[in-house]
């Protein structure tokens, strides 16, 4: 019990640290992709930049518009941040380790319906954006919030359907169960390439990242749902987006790339604790790759128009997800000998 509590605390701190350094990473990646250098003044190579940015956010005036709904205005960023942080609990960051005589499962909680829990948290996260945009009492913020809501609802469908096919092959909704299935039967990316592609595209939309960053769309909507937010409330929104990006990357790595599994490591006969820690490292390496991929895509591809976004979601992704379910069903039926 105590071990789990400590693990959750560590997970909390690690998540926040990674989210903070994602802001630094984003700026560095953006700079490198554009032949620039990026932040390099705060500390060596600018690694203290997140601290400077955080300090700046706290120093700014915390302004609440006179016509805003005060309670909801506070609630918006809080919900966005809380739900973003809650999702990481069900992700298996590693196998089981035995340290100082205690056996610890490197997963905060392992409910039978792990994936559904992730979806639930992401869905509640929309409320953070919607409440913030609505409470601002500002046209741009409201438009951003409406866009966020419709985009999330549309893409959650395609995302859920792409997961259905995955669940059909693995036969479980539990996150650790899916990883164990992959350890036994090979990574899901091999079994579900189309599903992976759909899930990845939807993950971009669910985290409001470019090319689907409609809700904040600075060229059209000033700042979208966070137009009226300042100081650390704005910081929370931006931070929640980075936490979401981290969690989405972890979910993609868990569902399709074997989570903490390193192919062929079981055959080497190494110490199980060492293997477990290498597994954690592998999990983070996979996660970081997808974080990098998120950034890479953001700085390569222009933003969709909103009608194109909806067309893609409803007329391309959802039919393809259904097709994927049919194909998976057919393949399973064929494999199990009709």
């Amino acid at each position, binding site marked *: 019990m105590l071990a789990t509590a400590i693990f959750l605390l560590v997970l909390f701190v690690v998540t926040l640290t990674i989210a903070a350094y994602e802001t630094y990473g984003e700026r560095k*990646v953006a700079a*490198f*992709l*554009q*032949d*620039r*250098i990026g932040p390099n003044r705060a500390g060596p190579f600018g690694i203290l930049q997140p601290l400077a940015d955080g300090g700046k956010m706290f120093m700014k005036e915390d302004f609440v518009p006179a016509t805003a709904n005060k309670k909801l205005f506070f609630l918006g960023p809080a919900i966005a941040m809380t739900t973003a942080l809650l999702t990481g609990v069900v992700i298996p960051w590693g196998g089981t380790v035995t340290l100082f005589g205690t056996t610890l499962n490197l997963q905060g909680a392992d409910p039978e319906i792990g994936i559904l829990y992730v979806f639930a948290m992401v869905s509640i996260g929309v409320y953070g954006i919607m409440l913030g945009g609505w409470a601002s009492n500002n046209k741009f913020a409201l438009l951003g919030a409406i866009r966020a809501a419709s985009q999330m609802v549309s893409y959650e469908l395609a995302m859920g359907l792409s997961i259905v096919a995955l669940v059909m092959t693995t036969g479980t909704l539990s996150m650790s169960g899916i990883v164990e299935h992959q350890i036994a039967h090979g990574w899901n990316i091999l079994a579900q390439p189309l599903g992976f592609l759909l899930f990845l595209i939807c993950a971009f939309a669910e985290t409001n990242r470019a090319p689907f960053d409609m809700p904040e769309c600075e060229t059209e909507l000033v700042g979208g749902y966070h137009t009226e937010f300042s100081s650390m409330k704005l910081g929370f929104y931006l931070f929640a987006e980075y936490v979401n990006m981290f969690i989405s990357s972890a979910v993609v790595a868990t569902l399709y790339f074997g989570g903490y599994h390193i192919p062929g490591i079981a055959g080497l006969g190494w110490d199980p604790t060492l293997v477990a820690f290498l597994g954690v490292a592998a999990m983070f390496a996979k996660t970081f790759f997808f974080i990098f991929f998120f950034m*890479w*895509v953001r*700085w*390569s*591809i222009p933003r969709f128009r909103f009608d194109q976004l909806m067309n893609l979601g409803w007329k391309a992704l959802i039919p393809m997800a259904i097709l994927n379910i049919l194909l998976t069903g057919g393949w399973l039926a064929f494999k199990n000998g009709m």
Partner: protein
Amino acid sequence: MANVMQPLTSRSKVVSDKKMTLMERIYLPAIIGGLFITIKHFFRFKRPTIQYPEVQRARSDIYRGQHVLKRDDQGRERCTACGLCAVACPAEAIIMVSAERKKGEEHLYREEKYASVYEINMLRCIFCGDCEDACPKEAIFLTDRIVQSDYLRTPFIFGKDELVEPMEKSQRIDVSKRQTPAVIKFKEQRQYAHNR
């Protein structure tokens, strides 16, 4: 005849709104192509950035930067507050107040009249160098020093304390690059209005 327009560059492309092919409509090949283009830049380690305060781009010898008010070889200010620079200044950035030299100040000012106040507003100045051309006493020059940035406007009004070069011979500002023999010779030609 009307349709045979010469393209202006070799890189111009004819735009058409023809129906997209299936490959184009799938959109993914184009995305992957774009990703490859950006990642190529990611691994291109030659970046054109110059880390400004530490590294500075080479400037021309006759760069027109922050002004200097010269002293002569005996350390006396050359400026006589004639006001020609202020008249010549297209941005009206120069202001001066003249004063009469007192007894005992001969080692400070070369002639009987001098500028007790001489201010250049560096935010107005366009660094054209007309003041330098107008000066009959070889007193004002533009140098290759850059005017430093600041948070407020007031510090950009440079007074005599910032403009006049130090008395010590070793700390004098070198303007020989701008005051070449050709320039000196040109200034002697009195038929030009600004040399009179």
